């Protein structure tokens, strides 16, 4: 029998090195496949089994998955962009220009980062509305919805802080318009505005502040909350399907349904 690629892969999975890396072993049984999820530090956030219906496209449109995908692209391209960028005035603008005209594929890198950022903002909104219309915020998932709203705000802040970094006219005035809204807060407006910008107007301090928020603070907060968000899906019983809810949560909506059906006795 000729060896196929699958055979080679199976052989690879029997090797001592492979077995030392992947704790779940090499079998294809249901147990091994469960262990592949459960014994992996990243994948163990997910449940080992999912309801088949929830994998259909119409159930979720994969909006959460896609949002996370844009986040991964943004982290990857963002780290590469950081290699070419100094958060200082006016060097930031020169660096952005260099990305366009000097750095190999720099233009592509910046384009991918920017369009992915727009896509992430759009997808995170779409995800929220889809979850709402499915009613998936119902108990015991309340808190995961709250985490989701926080992640929406973090996404907006990530995008907003990144908007300033090219230090061009578009960036400068968009942030000026946006940050002026803070001035409208009663009593504390001036203070909040100053805290946000590190000054009374958008300047070099504001650029540094936004850079730190954009590259360190907000991404770290996002990573932590995304992990909790995923983990809570498993802990709250998987993706929401109304028909599969435990009796307690279900009782509220169809309280009169009998759980035990007794068929009619056969006619004698």
């Amino acid at each position: 029998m000729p060896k196929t690629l699958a055979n080679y892969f199976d052989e690879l999975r029997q090797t001592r090195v492979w077995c030392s890396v992947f704790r779940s072993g090499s079998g294809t049984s249901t147990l091994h496949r469960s262990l592949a999820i459960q014994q992996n530090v990243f994948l163990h956030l997910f449940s080992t089994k999912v309801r088949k219906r929830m994998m259909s496209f119409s159930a979720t449109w994969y909006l959460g998955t896609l949002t996370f995908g844009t986040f991964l692209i943004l982290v990857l391209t963002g780290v590469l962009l950081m290699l070419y960028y100094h958060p200082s005035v006016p060097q930031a603008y020169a660096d952005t220009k260099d990305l366009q005209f000097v750095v190999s594929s720099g233009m592509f890198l910046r384009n991918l980062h920017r369009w992915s950022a727009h896509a992430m903002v759009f997808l995170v909104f779409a995800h929220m509305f889809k979850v709402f219309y499915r009613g998936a915020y119902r108990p015991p998932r309340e808190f995961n919805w709250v985490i989701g709203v926080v992640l929406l705000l973090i996404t907006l802040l990530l995008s907003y802080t990144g908007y300033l970094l090219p230090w061009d006219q578009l960036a400068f005035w968009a942030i000026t318009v946006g940050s002026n809204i803070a001035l409208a807060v009663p009593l504390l407006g001036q203070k909040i505005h100053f805290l946000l910008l590190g000054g009374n107007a958008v300047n070099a301090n504001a650029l540094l502040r936004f850079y730190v928020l954009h590259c360190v603070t907000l991404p770290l907060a996002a990573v932590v909350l995304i992990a909790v968000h995923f983990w809570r899906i498993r802990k709250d019983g998987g993706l929401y399907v109304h028909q599969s809810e435990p009796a307690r949560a279900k009782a509220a909506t169809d309280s009169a349904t009998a759980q035990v059906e007794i068929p009619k006795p056969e006619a004698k």
Partner: protein
Amino acid sequence: MDKDFVAGVDSNAKKSPRRVAFITRRTSAAVRVTDEEQVQTYPELLFRVAVALEILCIALVITALLFNAPLEGLADPSHTPNPAKAPWYFLGLQELLHYFPPVVAGVLAPGLVVMALFVIPYFNINIEAEGLFLKDRKRRLTILATVAIALTVFLLIFDVYVAIPGTLIIAALMAIAGYSSPQSPSSLQRYLAAKPLSFWIMTWFLIELVVLTAVGTFFRGPGWAWAWPWQGY
């Protein structure tokens, strides 16, 4: 044949095991199965996730190859562009700032929206999610008419004409829902009749969010005056 067994309508073998249904010979109790078919996350789900992410990557890479990110001249604090626009997802807010004082449009409105989003799952009315007009129909229709008229007048007073069509469409759909029931002949009526209050508020919010953002993005020029998309502001 006489009934020779007793079963409470709310008997639930899982929830309250002490309740007993007496089953005579030749009959058996079928517990309705609430668990549905499950599959292994690996490989079934992870494979689909990988496909979804690949499609996303391809779409974004093609976009990045075809369209360049904008880059204007060096930031110049002494030269204000007209109009100066925020990022697109804040243009709905900026559009509101055009109509209302900053403390209302910039602080109160977004603050209340965020608060409302946070508390959605903590209200039983949103958990039960019963059709808005299935109970107490007459009174609720009166309230609907009052709120719709008041809101429209409010929007007229502040010249927020762009938000009026969405408001009237939702009000009209709600009125249709009010005159429908789960027994209505048309499926659209049955669909609308089953919709709870939260659905109507959220849908109204979604429509106005899209309209205000689109107007701010495509229809505003110098001095935030009305402009057409092809004028390119």
